[in-house]
């Protein structure tokens, strides 16, 4: 078996370095409450990023995740208010996300429109459709069983941790050991070669968009239950965090290479930056600039060392 990929190793090193600096400069960062908050705030990003990893591995991109996230969040609130039990609310949000993903996927896979154009259009259209439907109103007076998915504030993180571990392992395992996973890598590496080898590349492309939508729906529920109301403008800019985490984690933006483990590390690194700055007394306005710098570093490394650099992939 191959050892851990270079990219995973360097992101891990960056995380460790940041942790060391924090341990020396701001040990309060490691307080249980802070880590817990940080974890819960980043879990939705990770869930959406796992779906995005699949999309980017096939050589596409989905910038409509923020809008899909908002629709699924509002829908989950409305379903819960209508008395639907929470497990079905979560499933419903995934289904709505999956349907919106299918919309993106159909345009990309079967009408062969570039994914950046399709998802740019749906990003704007879905966001405005939501604004028009809700009139900008937030979903309030959520039923008691909505918050913390009907559990308590202390049980919920455990539940979510379990969920995330299952998802992370399932996506990694599937990409590695299922023909479908191989098809994702092959499609992203060379869509023509994959098709000639009998891979149903259109179906693969369609499916990863559906999966990304469903993951985003789940992310929306996991995020919404932390609050007592659901803003209809939630998820603005989420696509940037999600895509950045995937790219920093070593998935090639052109497809074919990358791992969910890298994405996990990307989410951790980018998620730590903002709070770390706050703890070290640096203006939070630097957060975006530093995240941007990390993204540029990551893509520059890919560009400068295409032959030496070997991002790990399972194929």
């Amino acid at each position: 078996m191959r050892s851990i990929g270079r990219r995973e190793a360097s992101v891990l090193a960056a995380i460790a370095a940041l942790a060391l600096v924090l341990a020396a400069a701001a040990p309060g960062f490691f307080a249980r409450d802070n880590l817990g908050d940080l974890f819960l705030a980043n879990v939705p990003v990770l869930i959406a990023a796992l779906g995005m990893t699949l999309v980017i591995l096939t050589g596409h991109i989905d910038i409509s995740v923020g809008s899909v996230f908002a629709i699924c969040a509002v829908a989950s609130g409305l379903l819960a208010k209508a008395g639907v039990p929470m497990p079905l609310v979560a499933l419903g949000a995934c289904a709505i996300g999956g349907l919106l993903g299918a919309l993106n996927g159909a345009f990309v896979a079967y009408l062969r429109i570039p994914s950046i154009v399709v998802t740019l259009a749906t990003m704007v259209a879905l966001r405005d459709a939501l604004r028009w439907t809700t009139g900008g109103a937030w979903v309030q007076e959520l039923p008691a069983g909505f918050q913390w998915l009907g559990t308590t504030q202390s049980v919920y993180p455990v539940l979510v941790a379990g969920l995330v571990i299952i998802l992370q392992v399932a996506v990694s395992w599937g990409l590695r050991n299922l023909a479908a996973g191989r098809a994702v890598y092959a499609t992203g590496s060379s869509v023509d070669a994959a098709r000639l080898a009998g891979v149903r590349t259109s179906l693969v492309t369609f499916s990863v968009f559906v999966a990304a939508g469903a993951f985003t729906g789940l992310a929306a529920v996991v995020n919404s239950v932390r609050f007592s109301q659901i803003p209809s403008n939630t998820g603005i800019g989420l696509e940037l965090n999600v895509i950045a985490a995937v790219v920093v984690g070593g998935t090639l933006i052109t497809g074919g290479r990358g791992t969910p483990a890298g994405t996990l590390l990307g989410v951790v690194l980018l998620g730590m930056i903002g709070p770390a700055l706050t703890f070290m007394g640096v203006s939070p306005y630097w957060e975006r600039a530093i995240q941007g710098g990390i993204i540029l570093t990551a893509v520059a490394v890919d560009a400068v060392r295409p032959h030496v650099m070997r991002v790990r992939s399972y194929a």
Partner: protein
Amino acid sequence: MPAAAPLLLEATGIAKSFAGVQALKGVSFDLHAGEVHAIVGENGAGKSTLIKILTGAERPDTGSITIAGQPVDHMDPATSRALGIAVVYQQPSLFPHLTIAENIAMALERGAIWRRVDWRRRNSQAAGLLARIGSPLDPERPVDTLSMPEQQIVEIAKAIGAEARVVIMDEPTASLTDREVENLYRVIALLRSHSVGVIYISHRLEEIFAVSDRITVLRDGHTVGTRAVGDVDRGELIRLMVGRELSTVFPKAAVKPGEPALEVRNLSNEAAGLRDVSLMVARGEILGLAGLVGSGRTQLAETVFGLTPADGGEILVGGRPLRATSPRDAIRAGIAYVPEDRRQHGVVLDMSVAANTSLASLGAVSRRGIIDRAAERGKAQEYVDRLRIKTSSVLAEVGTLSGGNQQKVALARWLSTNPSLIILDEPTQGVDVGSKAEIHGLMQMLAERGLGILMISSDLPEILGMSDRIAVMHKGTIRGVLTRAEATQPAIMSLALDPDSHH
């Protein structure tokens, strides 16, 4: 002629290493005005490195280059161009969305980028250059509407327009048919009459003998020898190239044909330009598919393989009708297709040898839908041994292998699907002499095992040497089928060229 002609270019004692690998160990080469000097050698012998050094893309570690008597101590691409060295690559490097005239102007026009373009002058200059090499192309045509040979013509027009004194042709005929090759020969003769020196690189020895004055053989980064074309024969040249005796005859042996593996009846596909195609390939038979580029050979393969579904006629595989609407259907029916452009279509360069080998037959190395990675590696290792694929490991990425070995990986992928029919599109294009013989040997072995083989090739000696029967295509239909005994180069060419001949 060459003896009296002035020396255009001289390279002596050139050595170059990349990351510890010695690509060139002492190569000497010279070129006279009006001379065609061929460079031959197996893949990896150092031909491309030498070209890169002559064009300034790489700097030599040691050695000297003299152009027209002047030593050049610092060669870079701009200097190389200024000294009159132009290259026509196997894959033309033109801007597809610009017109021929714009492409030529891009290479020739100098001046400020905000200057006003004189379109009339630009087009007439391009028309003049094209006329000089006898090409009827319209300078205002966008390059993406040109065929590969037409694009090469544009590259040559660029070289002539730049008043190049040395034109390097790197595998210029790789995708050309015989008639187009003839045309290229005419252009080379024209260049020669203008005292241009031509460095000609090709794997096709017939061409080397037809076109060049002298031949330099490279092997493992050394100049093994330079011979005048009259002083060397094919056998000696191959010996020099491979450093060992190699059979120059094709390993074809008669195999008793079995049941039909593929039958195509009155097949048509309007979008792909095919009409009323009928042919049959028996198990154990190699059917050569000859014809000019553009005659519909690849389109026929793609239609049979389900890439562009047919709109009329019948395809039977092993006697059962096949209506393939995707490669998946065709693969299930037992068809394998090794496409022409293997780097883009034949293999997935980012994937390992093992993953490439199993890609079309994952079911065979899976249990309950889960890939058994150990079984996958084992299966790939079998093919690596059986096809003698040179790779450090089955986990090495295919992009790191040489062309011949990539082609073998493509073959391995299809053999592992246990096909009854395999379609090979230009199986040995751009493959060195040694790998070529191995691939021919493999084809013979597969035929003996009862596979039907449909081999598309523009290499007439290969078609004649390897086929049991030869079908010749012209304008989207089969013009005639020749038996091995009837087939000669003129017989094939007359069918491929003359729309009215019947055999």
